[in-house]
């Protein structure tokens, strides 16, 4: 069992309180996932060719400053490092692909949680409340955010196995369910040049959608393609730089509730995560229909 929450703000006036609202939504899903939690926040975009990467190392005293200095020297780039518990946000005046390439070659022990120009990703073990507090979620502003609370039933409780999974710049996926054809799909994706970091089926789904997006599919088209190619049970919530999407499989065994007002769209495994949002009592509330793609776009909403 797992819990998923997502919040997409239509009214820019609410952006300063994005993290506070998502934090409440996440804590409400504690009973569905007390082992670990993860969040992706679309937050403080960096400009031009610069990029930001959320990085993790199990050692809380890891020498991030030295790594940052080495990155700057090797790539002749400006590097800024912001530490949050055992994660850092590294902002570099170079494209994320270059930075990721250098990190993989020189520091393979560093885990890249997320990358792009807008998205930051934090995931950690512990109760959702502890994770939200550890990373200062309630103080984060932004346009949209996604969270996941995990109760592991098969694979291990580790930071690596936590959601969200990132597979492209500013793209992340959270998943409640299980895929039955992930081995075949992983092979299929490996042949097309995708590398995997875990044995998790949700990572396969994230890389699958990233693959479709890289082929030029829109967010909605990528999810439509997933309906044909992904076999199993799923409720997905996906974020991209400007997009927010929800999809349930054709059987729809995994729960999901959507709610929408003029100011926001909220997705959660259960209504109790939505109940305390401003104006929730007047929101349109519905269960996303099976095999129907729901998407929203930041630019269209603004």
């Amino acid at each position, binding site marked *: 069992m797992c819990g998923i929450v997502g919040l997409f703000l239509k009214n820019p006036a609410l952006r300063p309180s994005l993290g506070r609202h998502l934090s409440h939504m996440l804590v409400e899903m504690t009973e569905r996932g007390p082992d670990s939690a993860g969040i992706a926040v679309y937050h403080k975009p960096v400009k031009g060719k610069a990029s930001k990467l959320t990085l993790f190392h199990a050692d809380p005293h890891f020498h991030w400053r030295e790594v940052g200095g080495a990155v700057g020297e090797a790539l002749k780039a400006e590097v800024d490092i912001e530490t949050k518990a055992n994660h850092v946000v590294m902002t570099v005046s170079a494209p994320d692909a270059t930075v990721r390439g250098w990190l993989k070659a020189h520091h393979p022990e560093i885990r890249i949680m997320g990358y792009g120009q807008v998205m930051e990703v934090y995931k950690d073990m512990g109760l959702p409340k502890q994770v939200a507090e550890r990373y200062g979620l309630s103080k984060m502003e932004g346009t949209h955010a996604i969270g996941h609370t995990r109760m592991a039933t098969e694979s291990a409780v580790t930071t690596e196995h936590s959601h969200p999974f990132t597979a492209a710049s500013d793209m992340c996926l959270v998943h409640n369910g299980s895929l039955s054809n992930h081995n075949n799909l992983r092979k299929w994706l490996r042949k097309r040049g995708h590398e995997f970091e875990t044995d998790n089926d949700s990572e396969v789904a994230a890389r699958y959608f990233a693959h479709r997006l890289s082929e030029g599919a829109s967010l909605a088209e990528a999810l439509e393609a997933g309906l044909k190619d992904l076999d199993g049970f799923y409720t997905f919530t996906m974020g991209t730089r400007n997009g927010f999407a929800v999809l349930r499989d054709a059987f729809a065994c995994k729960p999901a509730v959507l709610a929408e007002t003029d100011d926001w769209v909220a997705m959660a495994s259960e209504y109790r995560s939505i109940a305390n949002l401003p104006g929730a009592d007047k929101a349109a*509330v519905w269960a996303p229909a099976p095999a129907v793609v729901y998407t929203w776009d930041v630019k269209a909403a603004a």
Partner: protein
Amino acid sequence: MITVDLDHSSVRDLNERLHRLPPETNEKAWRIVNPKGAHALCAGLSVPIEVVIDGHPGYYCAGMNKEASIVVNGHCGVGLAENMMSGEVRVKGNASDAAGATGRGGLLVIEGDAGLRCGISMKGIDIVVGGSVGHMSAFMAQGGSLVVCGDAGSSLGDSIYEARLYIQGKVESLGADCVEKKMTPHHLAKLERLLARAGIEADPRRFKRYGSARRLYNFHVDHADAY
């Protein structure tokens, strides 16, 4: 009327209070506010009291209900009135998946839409839905009636044993062994009474009746070669 605000009281405390009421209680009228998606609200009631819930409850609201009459001014989560024995549960909004699951008796009225698998394994409950129901409704239904004023999703009544299904709108598809049946004057009268009890206005003559072809009850000797 006794009002309980769930911003200041736990569901456990509330349910315990309701469970302790003796059959001859004078505390017959209750109002619950701020349910905010809480689970198992008013589950297991067994005395003839009237409860109004203002807001949206979560999973298993009014589960196993016996005798009580419960009205929800809002939408309900998964498993509304599951395994209801008797009494009446009415939802003014929509209900999520598996509403009325395994219900044995009583009346469940959903004035809006119901989600997937409405009335799954129903065993005698009467369910009246003002709107539409999702896929696999009345799956393995064994008794009772399901009335749908709107449409029904795919695989309606899959592997149905008994139970009567009355649908006014479109049926996306019928499940295994579920067939359309003749609407006799006897069934019309039953449907009319059900709609009247539910307080939902609809013309019974516009409904079609579906039920079990009863071809799955016994092993069919023609299939012996399959093993």
